[in-house]
């Protein structure tokens, strides 16, 4: 088996790649202009027509798309293919309880799975391997994306989905899984459980592909040592397709972007100016081969650096560094996107007043797992003389957040005016994670 899934693309000389991108971008812009009135309007407002876009050099002329656009267009407003041609929907949590939905035609799924197959092949996955998928299956793209990629890479695929650690470990041992795909925090948890159960010598794992949340080099070392594997990073977002937008190779120094399908740019988040290679800024993606849900210049809000230095793996695909933070207030907790505004809405609803109770989000990483605590200042509306009624308020906050975010949170009711305010504005987030 080759060390590349699609060598002709993955090792394509840059000039050829550029030509391919030019062609695909022109076609993608025309596709969007012809089929998505919302885009056409956006382009008209900026005074751009498809005739102005002759290639990648003209990319900067196109308007940006943000999560706000996706929300405004929910659910069908950005759909560029007839619904009857679509075969799947995936979704990500949105800011206002409204989710972002992405549509896929069969071809979209096919190309996405190619991207995931490239990632699995890059970590050594072949038809000799057993690939355990421990990402969640469902609306989340992690499970099904890597599942499809594993099929295409020829691996025997174990569709475990997330959770049920004992069963994960039993299958890992009994069926001899050699590659594991999950979030880095779950990988760390699995590593600890393997240590506790003393079954390290029964594990055949050689590699892991971990994504959907931020993780550090020290966490990588820790997982690699505990599991005796090589741990690889993978990047993706539902809006653009899912996991496999970029992936790490054996060199483990950044992720190769599948730039035959997604063109990355780095911009200054304030001035929106495109920054040269090597400079830090906001990562922007333009899809160039999508049918159902193309996005032109989608602002990811991830702060990142691109580089086109020669990679020892032989791939010529541009590389992106691990994202170094966000340009908005979104938090990623245990792989879930969390916006403070979602928490505010729940507190207003539960608090019953018009004013948001003052709150403080506290995040930490203990034993490689994110902890999520929420301090809420007590108000007259929430207070009662009996414990049961206050517990009801506490539980309502917990339950609503769990149903919106799918995350467990520890709620602590605190005295009013005890959450520190700076310049009249409360500090809302304390993130003690060292990532």
């Amino acid at each position, binding site marked *: 088996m080759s060390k590349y899934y699609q060598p002709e693309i993955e090792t394509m000389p840059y000039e050829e790649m550029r030509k391919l991108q030019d062609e695909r971008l022109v076609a993608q812009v025309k596709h969007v202009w012809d089929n998505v009135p919302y885009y056409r309007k956006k382009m008209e407002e900026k005074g751009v027509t498809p005739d102005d876009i002759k290639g990648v050099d003209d990319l900067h002329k196109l308007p940006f798309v943000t999560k706000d656009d996706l929300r405004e267009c929910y659910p069908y407003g950005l759909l560029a293919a007839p619904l009857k041609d679509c075969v799947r929907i995936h979704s990500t949590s949105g800011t206002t309880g409204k989710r972002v939905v992405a549509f896929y035609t069969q071809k979209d799924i096919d190309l996405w799975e190619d991207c995931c197959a490239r990632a699995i092949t890059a970590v050594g996955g072949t038809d000799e391997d057993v690939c355990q998928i421990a990402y969640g299956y469902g609306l989340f793209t992690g499970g099904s994306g890597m599942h499809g990629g594993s099929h295409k890479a020829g691996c025997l695929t174990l569709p475990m989905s997330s959770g049920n650690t004992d069963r994960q470990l039993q299958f890992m041992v009994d069926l001899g899984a050699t590659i594991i795909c999950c979030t880095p925090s779950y990988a760390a948890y699995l590593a600890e459980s393997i240590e506790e159960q003393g079954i390290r010598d029964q594990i055949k794992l050689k590699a892991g592909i971990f994504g959907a949340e931020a993780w550090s080099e020290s966490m990588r070392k820790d997982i690699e040592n505990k599991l005796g594997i090589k741990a690889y990073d993978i990047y993706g977002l539902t809006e653009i397709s899912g996991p496999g937008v970029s992936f790490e190779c054996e060199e483990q120094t950044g992720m190769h972007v599948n730039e035959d399908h997604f063109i990355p740019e780095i911009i200054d988040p304030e001035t929106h100016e495109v920054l040269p290679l090597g400079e830090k800024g906001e990562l922007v993606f333009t899809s160039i081969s999508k049918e159902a849900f193309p996005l032109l210049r989608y602002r990811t809000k991830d702060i990142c650096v691109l580089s086109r230095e020669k990679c020892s793996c032989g791939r010529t695909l541009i590389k992106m560094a691990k994202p170094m933070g966000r340009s908005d207030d979104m938090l990623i907790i245990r792989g879930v996107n969390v916006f403070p505004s979602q928490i505010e809405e729940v507190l207003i609803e539960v608090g019953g007043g018009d004013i948001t109770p003052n709150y403080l989000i506290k995040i930490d990483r203990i034993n490689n797992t994110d902890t999520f605590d929420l301090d809420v200042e*007590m*108000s*007259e509306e929430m*207070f*009662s*003389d*009996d*414990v049961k009624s*206050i*517990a009801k308020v506490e539980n309502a906050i917990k339950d609503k957040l769990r149903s919106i975010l799918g995350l467990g949170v520890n709620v*602590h*009711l*605190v*005295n*009013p*005016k*005890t959450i520190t305010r700076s310049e009249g504005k409360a500090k809302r987030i304390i993130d003690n994670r060292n990532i």
Partner: protein
Amino acid sequence: MLVKQVSAFIENKAGRLNEIADTLAKNNIDISALSLADTTDYGIVRMIVCDPEKAVLALRESGVVCKITETLAIAIDDAPGGFAKGLKALTDNGIEIKYMYACISHEKGKALMILSVDDPQKADALLASTDAGKVNPSEIYRHI
């Protein structure tokens, strides 16, 4: 007899209860009964004081979340069996207690209990003619 109870929220942190006690002291408010309900993160102080409205204003002023709720005071004999007899009066009248605590009494041979019940008005009416209902208001809202 119906009694206005002041309840206040306190976080489980050193000094929080002191702040409440100090505020009441500064405002010359006398406390006749007090109970503290606690959970892992916070507690609720419940008090019977000489001037509930004034206490609430003062506490709010100092940043404490508090409120007034209607509770019931009953009189029992300060003797073995007195508590049992008092409870029987409640059970006989079908009154269920959410929580209760003791209150000081200056009447010789008598003790007072403060009760939280679902419908204090109704409970008060039921007990008015019994021994348990014989409570002297000046015993509760004592001004010194």
